[in-house]
């Protein structure tokens, strides 16, 4: 597992340290022996398909569903057995869970009451928070009178009201429509950066994770598959699962023939150093990493001739399906810019030469 590479400010002690966390629901193991460090001020995303355990992990950190075994330390203190009320976090749920019968003002002020604060202090803080989330004059409305995006921001303001050390976001954007979602992504990210609050967000939307997170924790079947920056996760997937789950990925049956060599069909390619030890496996390359050549150019390494079987116009680029007998008739999906298509006069049924660049070609053992 290629965990914990290149993290910001790794010299400092982690703000949140999770050690060997296991969560059982009856006989079902939802989390298997998970360890993770989260550093102060970081924005971490738990990403994975539904049922992978990401929400269970978040709820364990919040104390809402306490783990069966393992330790969670926050700011150096073991918080494992503590109920939510004795932990230090703010949380936003997918449903927002705004109190429907209280005004926006009272929703945001909810956590500030009976904490020994004067009314004017509370009012000031609430105004400040509403300003922060960009809804300064909506205080007297009820949640039902706000749009989904506005409700989401009120939930955020309420979670931040008590200045918690840790902000937990449980699929906060998935109930919103696409446009609002994109806008809020940036707003939340900017707000988090401005406040410097350590944040953990659960999402099943890879685009969300890639654009917002400092580090992404990819999970599957209750285990962590990879931890890394969005770029690392995208360009250097540690496992075939990650490679497959994030972005588009070609998967071709291949055989490993040495540390940096693999064979697809009849052809040998040089590839990134392999991580696993098996013989039979899968070669992967992203559609946008496939490079097309003019026919005249001299042959070089990793180049093959293919037939264009299908072409599909997707707006900013063309998606093509390429095949070759030499790849034992496996097809490759490749994306070409409009420019390249015009320049190389790529058309359906024509033959072209493509390169599968060494730095983009990887070999994995087949799963299972």
């Amino acid at each position, binding site marked *: 597992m290629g965990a914990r590479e290149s993290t910001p400010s790794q010299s400092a002690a982690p703000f949140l340290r999770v050690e060997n966390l296991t969560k059982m629901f009856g006989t079902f193991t939802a989390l298997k022996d998970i360890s993770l460090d989260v550093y102060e001020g970081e924005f971490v995303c738990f990403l994975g398909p539904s049922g992978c355990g990401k929400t269970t992990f978040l709820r364990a950190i919040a104390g809402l569903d306490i783990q069966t*075994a393992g330790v969670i330390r926050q700011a150096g203190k073991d918080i494992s057995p503590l109920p*939510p009320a004795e*932990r230090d976090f703010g949380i936003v749920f997918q449903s927002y869970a705004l109190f429907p019968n209280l005004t926006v003002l009272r929703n945001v002020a*909810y956590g500030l*009451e*009976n904490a020994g604060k004067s009314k004017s202090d509370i009012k000031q803080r609430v105004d400040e928070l509403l300003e922060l989330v960009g809804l300064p004059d909506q205080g007297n409305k009820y949640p039902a009178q706000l749009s989904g995006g506005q409700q989401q921001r009120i939930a955020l303001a309420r979670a931040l009201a008590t200045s918690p050390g840790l902000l937990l976001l449980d699929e906060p954007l998935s109930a919103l429509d696409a446009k609002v979602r994109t806008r809020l992504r940036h707003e939340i990210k900017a707000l988090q950066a401005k406040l410097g609050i350590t944040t953990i967000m659960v999402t099943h939307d890879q685009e969300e994770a890639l654009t917002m997170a400092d580090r992404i924790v990819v999970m599957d079947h209750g285990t962590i598959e990879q931890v890394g920056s969005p770029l690392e996760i995208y360009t250097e997937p540690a496992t075939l699962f990650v490679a497959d789950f994030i972005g588009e990925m070609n998967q071709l049956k291949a055989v490993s023939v040495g540390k940096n060599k693999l064979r697809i069909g009849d052809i040998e390619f040089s590839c990134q150093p392999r991580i696993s030890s098996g013989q039979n496996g899968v070669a992967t390359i992203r559609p946008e990493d496939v490079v097309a050549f003019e026919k005249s150019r001299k042959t070089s390494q990793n180049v093959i001739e293919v037939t264009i079987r299908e072409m599909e116009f997707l707006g900013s680029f063309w998606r093509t399906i390429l095949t070759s007998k030499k790849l034992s008739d496996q097809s490759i999906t490749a994306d070409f810019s409009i420019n390249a298509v015009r320049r190389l006069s790529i058309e359906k049924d024509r033959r072209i030469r493509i390169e599968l660049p060494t730095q983009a070609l990887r070999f994995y053992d087949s799963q299972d």
Partner: protein
Amino acid sequence: MVDLSLKTAAVVKVKPRAGRDAWIMRAFILVIGLYLVVTLAMPLYAMLSKSFNTYYFDLARYEVQINEDGDWGETIDVAALNAASNKYSRDQLRTSSDGRLSIVSMLENFSFRAKTLYRLRNVHASGSFLSGSELVDDTNWHEFTSNEFRRVYLKPVKTTGLDNFRQYFSNPSLFNSIFNSLFIAIVTTIITITLAFTFSYAIARSKMRFKGGFKVIAMAPILVPSLLPGIALVYLFGNQGMLKFLMGDQSIYGPIGIIAGSVFFTFPHAMIIIQTALSISDARLYEASDALGASKTKTFFTVTLPGARYGLISASFVVFNLVITDFGLPKVIGGQFNVLAVDIYKQVIGQQNFEMGAVVSVVLLVPALFAFAIDRIVQKKQVALLSARSVPYQPKRNRNFDRLMFSYAAIIAALIVGTLAICQYAALIKFWPYDLSLSLTNYDFDVMDGGGWGSFYNSLKLAALVAVIGTVAVFTGAYMVEKSQGMQFGRSLFQFLAMLPMAIPGMVLGLAYIFFFNSPNNPLNFIYGTMIILVICTVTHFYTVSHLTALTALKQMDREFESVSASLKQPFYKLFSQVTVPVCLPAILDISIYLFVNAMTTVSALIFLYSPDTTLASIAMLNMDDAGDIAPAAAMGMMIFYANVAARIIHHFLSKRIYSKTQAWRTR
């Protein structure tokens, strides 16, 4: 990935620490759970064990010596004495817990004036007898003059076994009631369901006019005690009834009267359930049926009926249960036709045979539990239907059909209004059928049996107390069970206890309360005969429906409210008072009016528990009817009706006001 984490020995399980909120919530569950145990489980247990207790006089436990002329004769075993005089057979020695046997009844030629002296002793330490009011339970000889000896009574010994049941089933006059009860319940169910289905169909599927009015009228029977239609029937078809000629040589006193009255009081219960079932059916199915060219009749049998089947089944069992457990109506109009619920009353009040009362109660529990279980299973399926996304059916105008449905609904409404009107008319007539002038003499309750106007005020007080205390207890309990975490077993147990009252007939509950609370060993004995026990019994009796109403409302709340509140370090009771209660206020008001109306009309459980200081209006009705004061009984019944109507109206306006005040957020 291999699952190795939990197999390695070093793993230490995390023991979650419960916060203050969790402890408070657990305490609440415990308190309300304990309330249900004490007011439900323990009384029922007391009743069950009572039904297996048999008492008989064990004469072999006593020895007697007689001194007729200065010399003590030989020691005689009392059993031998009985054998010699041939006084009591084995069966005659069977008795109840309060049975007493005079010892001199076994002595031939006994005279209390004779100078004869007697000695009596217990052979075993377990035997006992009464000398006057003094209990003797040692094994010494005790000497008596003949005048003293005639006040010596033997006490029965207790054994446990099925003897009571054997006796019950060997007595045809008792076990025939089972068939009578089943007969009444089944026939009523068939009639009520047919009538209520047609009525609900008219409301859901026609465009007839005056729908709102019909619905309100159809609900009216809920507001009166079940015996009120009995009184109306007596006025109409009784021995001096206005329409007696319609009865031919049949008598209204018996199955006909019980069935007619039962249909009246069960009608709204069936209608509510069936109407819900009909209103959730999917319009798309009707469009499909239309498009496939199915006839109206075919659509009815292939779409409408199957769609409403769960509602129909559920309503059937609810009606069945209501009828088989009802006591007031068969008491008033049953005549010589015995049913189980009345048998319990007769055994307990008439014959003071508590053990046999307990046996009949157990017999009555069987069909009630059965009907309850089936209803629960069907209800669950109904819920699943409800949550499906469907397009509500919109009836189209059809002049002939609408007119037909209107006539039908009008007839039903007229029958209901007519029944109430007859009672009101009867209450205002001086002396039916001889003096038809109007007067208020029948309202002079204070000169009649049953407790007078005081019982009406007691009923109001009871209903108000039940509404307030019951609502608080039920809603708090439901909240704690729904929103607390952990303690899975405790919460399931609580759920079970909360569902149980619905399956327990009122008569059974009331009798169980006698056994449990009237026992001198019970520290809660002091509440016996007070208003407190009436309140407790009524809250428990109507717990289930209230609990389900509260649960439904609570389940609609976002389940993350508690998590958010805890993360903001706020105690749960702040959330409860500021969010949960205000949001659920409509449901809370519904619970309170339900409890109020039922407390006003209930008879069955409380008939065993009221005291001269706590007489109630509905029971006064029964007692006045028993004493032949039928007109005052009708007058009292209508007072209950008006009180409930008033409560309903207040509830309506209160809801409206609260709605506009605290539910402002519902409107955009």
